[in-house]
């Protein structure tokens, strides 16, 4: 039988506010344990929460970026459960009136477009962190009270690739609107996966399991593929899937049942009497909407329309607002979109990755970058030297002209000089000449390579090619 995988996500995104959601402690990653805490986030008796207005604003921005309907009224509720990282033993969250209602985004995977429904987005506080050691656990409440939003999707995914595309989209959107850096490795984006399988054509959903501990987008893909296979195997063997929460172990490449928190199923939600409702007027929502920057999807389309870029290029460039900005700033001074795009997608991407630099920290200015492209285009340097110079620029921050000057990398386009070299090399290598004559046209590359080597890569490859061919044909 053929099966279809049905997936829904709960994506937690930590908002990049200055302070926590209900107190004025710093929202900061990586501080010494329990140094970003105060009586409020430690739940000391008598303390009260006061909502951070920026968390509301960010939540609405996020919702609008995912085309969510924003209701006027929302409120905060308490969700009760005991866990040492939850200082009040209830989490302030939102139950029946979330900040953002239904939305929809389009993602592209395996060459097809899919619409993914957003069920809701609500805001809530994060819990602290536990470190386990020996017979004890150590509690650090620095993260307790960090503002989170939870994006809940409809069960609209049918493949791991769609999930990846969606998470990429969410990450890009959040970065564009300045709400979060969405680093799964640092936990600023976390994702729980609800997954089930059903025979293709079936209307009914299968029993689902919930996967936790997904620490990267690629882990999400691996976990989905593993778990879908596990479900199918269980069903094919005549077994039944148990509705449960399972933990993904990325090292082992498997999921394991989690010991459920015993009372996890009765959270006793009720409106938090320490807080008052949030009321957003239509004007306020419209203002926030108007303040949103151009979002990745719109930008992508514009790159295709305005710059004639292939959709693929447009997609890659707009994945990060920093890359997109670098592209746009470069095109503004040098209108060669495709050449710029190629360089960004290949050379820049490689250097960023190899040197572990984030797109927001690109160490080259668009002016220097386009100067380099111009030098290549004008034949001042050849294209392989161009790549070399680019790498040097990336590492030293020097201007391309200076590097070319210092290293004497100017292209050699002196036909006489090159011809003399070609003739010399042809004369010294009768065997490849014979091969060429015998019909092995590839033997030509040997001569081109030798000439380039002799000129330290600086010869104009076009000239070299022409002269080599002419000499060989003559020989």
């Amino acid at each position, binding site marked *: 039988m053929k099966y279809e995988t049905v997936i829904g996500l709960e994506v937690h995104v930590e908002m990049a506010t200055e302070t926590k959601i209900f107190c004025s402690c710093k929202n900061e990653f990586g501080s010494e344990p329990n140094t970003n805490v105060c*009586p409020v986030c*430690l*739940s*000391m*008796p*008598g*303390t*009260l*929460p*006061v*909502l951070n207005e920026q968390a509301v604003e960010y939540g609405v921005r996020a919702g609008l970026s995912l085309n969510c309907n924003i209701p006027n009224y929302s409120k905060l509720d*308490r969700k*009760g459960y*005991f866990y*040492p990282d939850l*200082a*009040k*033993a*209830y989490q302030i969250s939102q139950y029946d009136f979330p900040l953002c209602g239904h939305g929809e985004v389009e993602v592209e995977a395996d060459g097809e477009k899919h619409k993914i429904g957003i069920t809701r987005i609500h805001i809530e506080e994060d819990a602290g962190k536990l470190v386990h050691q020996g017979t004890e*656990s150590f*509690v650090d409440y620095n993260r307790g009270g960090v503002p989170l939003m939870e994006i809940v999707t409809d069960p609209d995914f049918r493949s791991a690739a769609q999930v990846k595309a969606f998470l990429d989209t969410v990450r890009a959107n959040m970065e564009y609107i300045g709400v979060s850096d969405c680093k799964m490795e640092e936990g600023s984006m976390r994702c729980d996966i609800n997954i089930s399988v059903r025979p293709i054509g079936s209307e009914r959903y299968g029993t689902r399991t919930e996967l936790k501990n997904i620490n990267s987008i690629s882990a999400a893909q691996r976990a989905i593929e593993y778990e879908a296979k596990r479900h199918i195997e269980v069903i094919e063997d005549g077994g039944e899937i148990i509705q449960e929460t399972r933990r993904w172990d990325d090292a082992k490449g498997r999921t394991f049942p989690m010991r459920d928190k*015993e009372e996890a*199923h*009765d959270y*006793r*939600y*009720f409106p938090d*009497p*320490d*807080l*008052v409702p949030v009321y957003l007027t239509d004007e306020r929502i419209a203002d926030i909407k108007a303040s949103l920057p151009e979002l990745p999807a719109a930008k992508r389309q514009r790159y295709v329309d305005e710059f004639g870029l292939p959709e693929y290029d447009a997609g890659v460039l707009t994945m990060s607002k920093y890359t997109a900005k670098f592209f746009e700033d470069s095109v503004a001074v040098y209108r060669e979109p495709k050449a710029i795009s190629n360089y960004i997608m290949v050379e820049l991407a490689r250097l960023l990755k190899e040197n572990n630099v984030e797109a927001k920290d690109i160490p080259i200015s668009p002016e220097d970058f386009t100067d380099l492209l111009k030098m290549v285009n004008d034949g001042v340097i050849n294209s392989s030297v161009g790549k070399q110079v680019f790498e040097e620029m990336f590492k030293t921050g020097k201007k391309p002209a200076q590097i070319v000057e210092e290293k004497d990398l100017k292209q050699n386009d002196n036909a006489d000089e090159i011809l003399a070299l070609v003739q010399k090399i042809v004369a010294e290598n009768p065997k490849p000449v014979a091969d060429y004559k015998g019909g092995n046209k590839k033997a030509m590359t040997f001569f081109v390579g030798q000439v380039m080597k002799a000129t330290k890569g600086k010869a104009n490859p076009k000239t070299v090619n022409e002269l080599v061919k002419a000499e060989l044909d003559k020989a």
Partner: protein
Amino acid sequence: MELTSLSIKQAAELLEKKEVTSEELTKACLERIEAVEPQINALVTVCADEAVEAAKCVDEKRAKGEALGKLAGIPAIIKDNMCTKGILSTASSKMLYNYKPVYDATVIEKLKAEDYVLIAKANMDEFAMGSSTETSYFGVTKNPWDISRVPGGSSGGSAACVAADEAIFSLGSDTGGSVRQPAAFCGVVGLKPTYGTVSRFGLMAFASSLDQIGPLTKNVEDSAFVLDIIAGNDSKDSTSAIMDYPHYGEGMKRDIKGLKVGIPKEYLEQEIDAEVRQSYLDAVRLFEEMGAIVEETTLPTFDYALSAYYVIASAEVASNLSRFDGIRYGYRTEQYDDLKEMYKNTRSEGFGDETKRRIMLGNYVLSSGYYDAYYLKALKVKTLIKNDFDRLFGQYDILLSPTAPTPAFQVGAKSTPLEMYVNDLFTVPVNIAGVTAISVPSGVTKEGLPVSVQMIAKAFDENTMFRAAWNFEQAAGFDKKPTL
């Protein structure tokens, strides 16, 4: 007259004229505490050294002619559920037997800004749940008028200490009557401000949607005076009212001719002690004599307020007390092998029976399957009760009722929770409706126990209520003191 029986107004005058120093006044209170505490147990912590120190400091400032606050050098006692920095704040629970807050409640900051002298922390029902101060981990507080009786609760210590002249005034907290009922039992004035008037920041929450801090004082004037100091918007409390606060007490001494007073008949239809009833009827007559327009009226939802109250308050307290888990502060059991045992034993050993009962009740009414039937239903009933009050306050300036159905009862007299809960019957509707009320002594019974009447005004109309209360106080001429 003894120094300790002075009102705030009187004490402030003597201090200002330098006829007495704050040190003398404070030491007089400390001596009084030493003399009567063994009998009444109104206090959990006495901060004698700190108090004398603070008093001396005020005296020095005064000697130097420096500017001083409105409560300069006046000794006060604070209910033990309000956080006082560096001073034990236990809420009378074993759970917080050793807890010293690192911050001051907003009300404490305000009192400090007026140079008051904190002399002690008052005993109370554990986490403010009770009507008799019998549920305290630190022992029962006794009524200064008759030490075989309770002082009421939950602010029993705060009421008893003022009645017994251990301090010039005190603060209590009122969730369903916890200031007014003990004030009535102890023959002092007790105020429950409109919800939102006094910041709750630093008040250990019982039922967040109902809790208000209020003063217990020797007269109505002091009550308004203290409210004027502790009221005001606080950015640390989202439920603190954002408005222009009036000058509390202004116009208090104007007569009440033409004041419209409603007498909700439901109060008198309850089982009420005969002497309480008589004292109340006398009060009604006094209002008429003073020129008020008194009319019988009806509060049809009266009968439902108590049930709604127990559902709502328990739900909130179950959640509010979940933070006591033995991790960040307070008591932790010594008997545990794993986390769950640590949680359960800590909470089972740290909380008393009444607290456990309310936690259980609260979690029951919030739990899956019961939420709609109990919690949501109670919130809807709350709407109806509020509507009832809104309607009455369209017609009347104040409502008049007895504060409690009986005078102070014997220690140990209430054997079931419901018997105890019924004590709050007359006070609870005020909290549910979020309005304001004051309890003012109206007389004493043949057995020599004080009884009081309650005046209720619409939200944020304390000044009309103070005027009624002050005029009534003058007319009633209550001047009895316990003979302790």
